[in-house]
């Protein structure tokens, strides 16, 4: 399976708001697998969103099991039509993006979040996430709204305590 081409900044599609997924069918499952395969080819990616490969739908992958150090996680997740319903606390962390090669920067994210989404079968799922996994989810959900981490950069010397 060939990885899907990843759009890179400043491609306008990375700035677009994605449409909800309405069809939960084998093609969607196949796409999610293809998207995972694509992320696997990148440099240590822990998530990817559908618009990064030009599919303008609200689907993203979150996988905190791939963190270098063990972190709290819910395993590899396919999040479809995700929405953050609650958030608490703030933390600074360094982020990069498959669509923005050779640049990383500091971003403030909520420390803990609650989100609801649909899984690959269309079932409603909810998660409480914290720390690194919550950061991944916020980064990927931002992609679905056309927001890049570049839009959220804070001073490179920002130093809220990492948790």
């Amino acid at each position, binding site marked *: 399976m060939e990885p899907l081409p990843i759009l890179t900044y400043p491609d306008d599609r990375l700035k677009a708001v994605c449409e909800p997924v309405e069809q939960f069918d084998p093609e969607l499952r196949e796409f999610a697998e293809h998207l995972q395969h694509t992320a696997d080819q990148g440099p240590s990616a*822990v998530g*990817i969103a559908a618009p990064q490969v030009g599919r303008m739908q609200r689907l993203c992958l979150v996988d905190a099991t791939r963190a270098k*150090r063990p972190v709290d996680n819910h395993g590899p997740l396919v999040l479809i039509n995700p929405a953050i319903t609650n958030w608490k606390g703030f933390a600074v962390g360094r982020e*990069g*993006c498959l669509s923005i090669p050779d640049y*990383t920067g500091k971003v403030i994210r909520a420390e803990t979040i609650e989100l609801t989404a649909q899984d690959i079968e269309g079932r409603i799922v909810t998660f409480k996430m914290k720390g690194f996994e919550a950061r991944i989810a916020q980064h990927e959900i931002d992609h679905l709204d056309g927001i890049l981490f570049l839009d959220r950069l804070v001073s490179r010397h920002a130093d809220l305590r*990492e948790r």
Partner: protein
Amino acid sequence: MAQPQPWLLLTLVGADRPGIVAHITRVLFGVGAELGETAMMRLGNQFAIMMMVRGAGNPEEVAGLLESVRADFNLKLHVDEIDASLHQHREPDISVTVHSADRSGIVAEVTAALLEAGMNILDLRSDVGGSAEKPIYIMQIDGESSAGVEPIEQCVARFADQGLTVRVTPLETMRG
């Protein structure tokens, strides 16, 4: 195809006032120069610039181009040809924050300890806060540690006895 000119490193320092960056970069833009990575900050009451530049000639020519602005702002200017290139970023995986009452030797002692523990410094910023009567020293260091966090923590633990608060935090870049 012509080889690109080598990168030059411009360093400029002078009393901080509005317009230094705009005037310097306007001259460089006007001759078609390319800017690479830059770092600019206020240190004391001075404004300091480090800037990668190419395409504006050799060091003497660049100094000549900037002479008028340099004189207007009373800046100290230095230009060196450097063996540098873009897209050579490295990601820090450890952060060390140090603070204490100000005294001499903090940077030398802490960085020597970090070196001994295998840490390579990628970014260091320090400042003196508090008051003139009771100054405090704050230092933030980002770097890479091939051996992980533990050797760094063990190595800096001794500073607690010397009145320094040292916090070591692992960093992980989230990429997605």
